[in-house]
């Protein structure tokens, strides 16, 4: 039923911008015609049961051309997760796109196009993609052009009011995944809005955007660094979206303040498309046409959405997310299956535990996500009970060498994002009065012993000034004075020795300290400065802690081996 075209409105405006140059509708059609000719001559091969090709094209506009050309010929477009050799081997259909020269089927000379866009069968399996496979079993997802069209229209209905007619779409996320594809490519194509071919990889890239209105299609990892973006850009932001992994409210607020535009977090999945939206930590609001229900007694969220396939639409899609629903909206309470999202990927701590216990050194393992301070990345922590041979090895070398060795055994078996970052070796798991190991007990094993450190640039002389950010869960704040946690003096001395060694190579321990004085307290959440100043030709190291120019403490280390003086 090749009835209608996919790109609908004839706005007269450009389809996209490449290197600041507008790509007109006519040029886009010329490319489309060239891609159709190239695909018509393609041998789909024997290996697959349906005519298809794999698309690997980093240029977003050409990707769109290949996609629409494929659809117009009734082909299924396979979207590989990457273009690694092993993926190419696993997908035996022809590969198309700039990924390799062999398959550069077309020279984009800007030839003649048809007057109208070619018709498309909206109900054929237009796209095949794999869910992020870090759970061990990636599943195949099919989407028809009409499903994707419905999502594009849903997005326009939900957010179109935030945009001006010539607002440009720009993305920091890949366009071939099931978030970037509808949000960054299909929404603007369907709504007759232009998109920017070049991706934003670093906040600096924002500075190179020519003056215009923009909408940013992004993810938490990028948004967190956005406050670093140069202010020189002429970009006027209308809004931003974030999806893929949870967006910390403080990151959302900082990014919103920097853009001077609303930041919408999107809840959705490859299977369901966009489900709900929210700002900062407000309750989630369902997208237009989406109806939510709770599955009892599990409290898993059931999603009724116009984006589902016909067969799914009768019963709705049962998600793996636990939720609460009330008159204010939706609250998400985590995954029913313990999956965590790291860097937009689904990671299963249980699978990491299974892989760890396969190692001859490991008896038992518990793996848990450790949220970073101030919206930093989530890292996996591993609490490990070793077998006797593991204990021997650990005793024989530095802890981090041993951990690196365990990690190296997991390379190739786990996604890099699923690798545990922090390791604790215990005799037994902590247990409460009922003999249960709670998540909180395990988390406490990872209470940080050191602050987060930033070097203050432009320090004069041979010294160094560090800005120390003290997390509230710092191990030193627990215990002693529960009502008035302070940073103990002995810890301040230890840190000074630690950072003196790290930054200046000065060898000293806390016992080498003299001329010590404590003046003011340092508390959780404080960000004191630590100045480290070599004295007496490097034979002594003076340290000073200050809090907004208020002195907190100071002292001097004398080097173990005094410098030889004549």
């Amino acid at each position, binding site marked *: 039923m090749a009835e209608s075209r996919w790109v609908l409105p004839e706005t007269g405006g450009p389809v996209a911008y490449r290197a600041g140059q507008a790509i007109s509708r006519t040029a886009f059609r010329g490319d489309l015609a060239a891609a159709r000719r190239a695909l018509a001559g393609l041998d789909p091969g024997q290996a697959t049961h349906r005519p298809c090709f794999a698309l690997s094209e980093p240029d977003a506009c050409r990707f769109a051309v290949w996609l629409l050309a494929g659809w117009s010929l009734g082909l299924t477009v396979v979207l590989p997760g990457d273009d690694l050799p092993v993926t190419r081997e696993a997908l035996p259909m022809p590969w198309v796109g700039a990924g390799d020269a062999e398959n550069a089927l077309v020279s984009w000379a800007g030839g003649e196009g048809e007057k109208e866009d070619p018709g498309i069968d909206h109900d054929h399996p237009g796209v095949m993609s794999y869910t992020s496979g870090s759970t061990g079993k990636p599943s195949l997802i099919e989407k028809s052009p009409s499903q994707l069209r419905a999502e594009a229209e849903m997005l326009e209905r939900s957010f179109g009011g935030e945009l001006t007619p010539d607002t440009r779409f720009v993305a920091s996320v890949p366009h071939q995944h099931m978030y970037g594809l509808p949000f960054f490519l299909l929404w603007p194509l369907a709504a007759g809005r232009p998109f920017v071919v*070049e*991706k*934003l*990889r*670093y*906040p*600096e*890239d924002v500075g190179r955007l020519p003056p215009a209105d923009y909408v940013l299609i992004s993810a938490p*990892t*990028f948004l967190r*660094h956005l406050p*670093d973006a140069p202010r020189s850009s002429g970009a006027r932001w209308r809004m931003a979206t974030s999806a893929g992994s949870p967006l910390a409210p403080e990151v959302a607020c900082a990014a919103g303040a920097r853009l001077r535009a609303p930041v919408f977090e999107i809840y959705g999945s490859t299977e369901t498309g966009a489900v709900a939206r929210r700002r900062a930590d407000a309750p989630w609001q369902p997208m237009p046409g989406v109806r939510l229900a709770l599955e009892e007694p599990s409290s898993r969220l059931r999603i009724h959405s116009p984006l589902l396939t016909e067969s799914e639409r009768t019963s709705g899609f049962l998600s793996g997310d636990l939720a609460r629903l009330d008159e204010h909206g939706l609250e998400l309470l985590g995954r029913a299956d313990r999956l965590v999202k*790291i*860097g937009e990927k689904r990671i299963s701590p249980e699978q990491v535990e299974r892989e760890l216990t396969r190692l001859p050194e490991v008896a038992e393992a518990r793996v848990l996500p450790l949220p*970073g301070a101030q919206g*930093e*990345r989530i*890292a996996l922590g591993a609490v490990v009970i070793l077998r006797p041979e593991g204990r021997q090895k650990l005793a024989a070398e*530095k*802890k*981090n*060498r041993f*951990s*690196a060795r365990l*990690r*190296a055994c997991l*390379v190739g078996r786990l996604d*890099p*994002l699923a*690798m545990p*970052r*922090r*390791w604790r070796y215990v005799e037994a798991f902590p247990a409460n009065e009922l003999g249960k190991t709670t998540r909180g007990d395990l988390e406490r094993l990872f209470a940080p012993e050191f602050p*987060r*450190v*930033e*070097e203050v*640039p432009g320090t004069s002389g041979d010294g160094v000034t560090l800005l120390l950010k003290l997390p509230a869960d710092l191990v030193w704040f627990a215990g002693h004075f529960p009502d008035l946690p302070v940073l103990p003096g002995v810890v301040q001395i230890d840190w000074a020795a630690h950072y003196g060694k*790290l*930054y200046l*190579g000065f060898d000293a321990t806390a016992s080498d300290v003299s001329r010590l004085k404590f003046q003011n307290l340092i508390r959780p959440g404080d960000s004191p400065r630590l100045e480290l100043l070599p004295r007496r030709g490097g034979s002594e190291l003076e340290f000073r802690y200050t809090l907004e120019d208020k002195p907190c403490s100071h002292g001097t280390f004398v080097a173990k081996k005094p410098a030889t003086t004549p």
Partner: protein
Amino acid sequence: MQEDLRHEIKVFIIEALNMEDVTPEDIGDDEPLFGEGLGLDSIDSLELGVGLQKRYGLRISAENEETRRIFASVRALADYVTANRTR
């Protein structure tokens, strides 16, 4: 000179990525930063890229192949910083 810079970059990596129990001596100059070796991942590459650009006034292009080359090892990073730094 290069050795100082390599040490500086190691300290920077340790602090930027919040690596526990790791000292600069633990990181080999030619040890691969990704995969085996230090085991950094795609989020780390963004994290490091942002930090290094700020600190040394670098421009690291969005092109993946180049990024892979620059982040191959501490030695490769230090050489890239030396050739391209503006501060």
